[in-house]
């Protein structure tokens, strides 16, 4: 899967959990889920569960702790896909 394809797939998931005052165009690779995108911890869990389904991977607690930004999420997805 191409990087751009992965990024689009991730953005589509994040979009669902954005608060009303944040637009999909606000999502950047450097965006911090909580601080920049105003996504709360409960919805970050939903993003992780959707990512697991979409990429057919499983994240652990330590992955969750590392996943602060969109870039972090991309790196974790890459790692998990490589492990498969």
């Amino acid at each position, binding site marked *: 899967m191409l990087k751009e394809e992965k990024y689009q797939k991730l953005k589509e998931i994040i979009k669902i959990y954005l608060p009303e005052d944040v637009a999909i165009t606000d999502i950047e690779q450097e965006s911090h889920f909580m601080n920049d995108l105003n996504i*709360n*911890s*409960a*919805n970050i*869990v939903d993003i*992780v*569960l959707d990512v697991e389904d979409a990429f057919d991977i499983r994240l652990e*607690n330590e992955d*969750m702790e590392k996943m602060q930004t969109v870039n972090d999420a991309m790196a974790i997805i890459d790692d998990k896909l490589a492990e498969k």
Partner: protein
Amino acid sequence: MKESYNWILNSLPYTEPFLFVNEILHVDDKGAEGTYRFSPDADFYKGHFKNNPVTPGVILTECCAQIGLVCLGIYLLGKKSEIGNMAIGMSSSQMEFLQPVFPGERVRVVSELVYFRFQKIKCEVKMYNEDDKLVCKGVLAGMIGIANE
């Protein structure tokens, strides 16, 4: 021998006037079941509604959450670790209300776990009255974990 769930009741982070669990009937990895009787003396009946006391939907939701979500969460957490300082909060609720609950009625809540991962617990909940009629149902989610872990 019937398993005692007293340790779960004792771990609940609520007290009067906002404790809405009397008895836990059953808990396992998949869900929880418990009862609560709404005291006719509860303060909210004075205002909801004027001269016509009916249990508010938010209180029914809270009762569903305490029995269905929190008792189950404590059970699942407690199997893994000692319950110390619990950090807890409701993150979403989607409920439908089908029957009124009047002062003094006893209700039974049954929950089914959807998932409990990364400290988020999500359940489908149903509340029944003493005639076994469905009072309300919905999906509740919250964050529950041990603080300072």
